[in-house]
């Protein structure tokens, strides 16, 4: 019987500051083997003596040899991790959970609604689409952030801005003096979109409060519920459907999620 709780010892092979609070860690598994994850899946990262926590994989499985985790410094484990450098070891278990079923998205327009740190997990899907660009229709990205200083992956944001095959829209709640882009909440960008509603798969990832307002806005727009997907945050302690921490009604986020098809989520109380 496989042991559920033993990590693989992996190496941090790159660290990049994404914003004042977030860093991107490039992780290499022993022998450089691929993680073989689906976009949207998560891993459990552990530091011996500190603990273990779940993190969504931020890189696309199309980028081979390493994978990336975008991590906000918000607790004890992440604080220690933020002080670590390339060459140091971390424990990895996973990938776990259900990610985006990209086959269902093929041939469709893909619309991403990402709020704040929600861009980190959904970036795995964005880059998957970009690396298989001909398999998908339009790629529409709506990204909302508290301020322009908190924007993540600014190099990639610039590439999306420059790419004629990406429709990238960004807004910040409050911009600094040199911010020339949109100001306002993310839902303000939805009414003006010209969408082929029946043919668009819409993915929402962000803080709980954002889901409610984005759903209302998509509903007014006429987006069919069966075209909506979301990724939820919970603290999965085990990742294997045992510990109970991530449970929403009868669903375990570490097994049925973190990516949910909205019609499956609509009946779950306490989900949003």
């Amino acid at each position, binding site marked *: *019987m*496989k*042991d*559920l*709780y*033993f*990590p693989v*010892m992996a190496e941090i092979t790159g660290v990049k500051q994404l914003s004042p609070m977030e860093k991107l860690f490039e992780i290499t598994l022993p022998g450089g083997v691929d993680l073989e994850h689906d976009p949207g899946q998560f891993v459990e990262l*552990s530091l*011996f*003596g*500190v*603990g*273990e*926590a779940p993190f969504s994989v931020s890189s696309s499985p199309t980028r081979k040899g390493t994978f990336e985790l975008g991590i*906000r410094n*918000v*607790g004890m484990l*992440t604080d220690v991790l933020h002080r670590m450098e390339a060459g140091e*070891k971390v*424990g990895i278990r996973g990938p776990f959970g259900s990610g985006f079923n990209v086959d269902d998205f093929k041939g469709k327009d893909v619309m991403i609604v990402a709020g704040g740190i929600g861009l980190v997990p959904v970036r795995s899907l964005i880059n998957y689409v970009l690396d298989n660009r001909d398999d998908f229709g339009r790629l529409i990205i709506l990204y909302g952030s508290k301020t322009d200083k908190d924007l993540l992956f600014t190099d990639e944001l610039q590439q999306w801005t420059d790419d004629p095959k990406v429709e990238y829209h960004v807004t910040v709640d409050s911009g600094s003096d040199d911010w020339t882009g949109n100001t306002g909440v993310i839902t303000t960008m939805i009414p003006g979109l010209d969408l082929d509603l029946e043919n668009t798969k819409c993915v929402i990832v962000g*803080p*709980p409060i954002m889901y409610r307002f984005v759903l209302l806005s998509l509903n007014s727009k006429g987006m069919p519920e069966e075209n909506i997907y979301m990724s939820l*945050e*919970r*603290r999965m*302690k*085990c990742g*294997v*459907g*045992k*510990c*109970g*921490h991530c*449970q*929403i*009604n*009868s669903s375990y986020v570490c*097994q049925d999620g973190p990516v949910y098809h909205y019609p499956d989520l609509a009946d779950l*109380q*306490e989900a949003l």
Partner: protein
Amino acid sequence: MTRFLLTEDKVITFIEHLQKQKNVFAPHKRGTNSFAFEQVSDPASVMLDYTRTLHSVKKYFMPPREQLLSFSLTDNSFAEPTVDPVDAIFLGVHSYDLQAVFKLDHNFSEGNPEKNYLKRREGALFVGVTFAPDQWHFSGSVGINPNDADGFDVFLFAVENGYAVEAFTPAGESLLSGFEMSEFNSDIPAAADFNQHIYVPQGKLSEVFDNAWDNEVWEETSKECVGCGTCNMVCPTCYCFNVEDGVDVTATVGQRERHWDACMTRDFSEVAGGEVFREELAARQRHRVYRKFKYISDKTGQPWCVGCGRCTASCSAKISIVNIVNKLVQDHEQATVAPV
């Protein structure tokens, strides 16, 4: 099958007979009103006539604290802990507690089977005994009666002046072999009645819980509840856990441990950054009770509560799970009865 008479005066020698075969764990009196399963050293101190133990035998298969791995901080290596089968005879187990073990077996076998639990479970034999329902037991409402021998290797049916002993498995027969007893050919007296009940058949509970989400009982009980999680700690079917690392004083080695956790506590549903998904005590009480009667039950077809009464007996706020469920039943029936 043949039953044998174990008279009261032979119980100690019977326990000694069992001890020759394997380690024996049985209820012992602790304090003024409490009982606890402990390894038998003195057979005379075993209490076969007891109400309920504070904790069930779950503690042997899923210990309150358990090492998942040990690690070295000097070279980032880790080692597998030694997990041995408990491989013992559990004597004097009540029917509801064995049913609770079977439920845990399901939880730790389905999906991703868990090595630690399943390894510990190996070799365990169960010798059951009749219980007399007290003011807290209600296992009859979830289909578990005082004389239910389902799943036991041996059962001791309470009769006048002792027990009628019956083996139900080859392992059980082997436990009895070599111990002289006369045959018992009378009927087993009916077990005593329960003093409280859930007022619908267990098959209807799922339907009751379909309409229970917004019931005022959650808010009402939360006014008394202090969110201590004792109900979770004493529940024989609760198996949620937390995982934490501990470091030795030398700061060179340590261990990753899991320990029992409680969904009634605030931090159970907390995520990084401080968001709590069941902030209100009412929501936590509802989650606990739904886990016992709805969430797992819809997948398995049976309640995940075994009616032992521990959560209620141990609650410092005197919150009764039976009263909660009966309130839901009552409101459900009033809502579904057609107006006259």
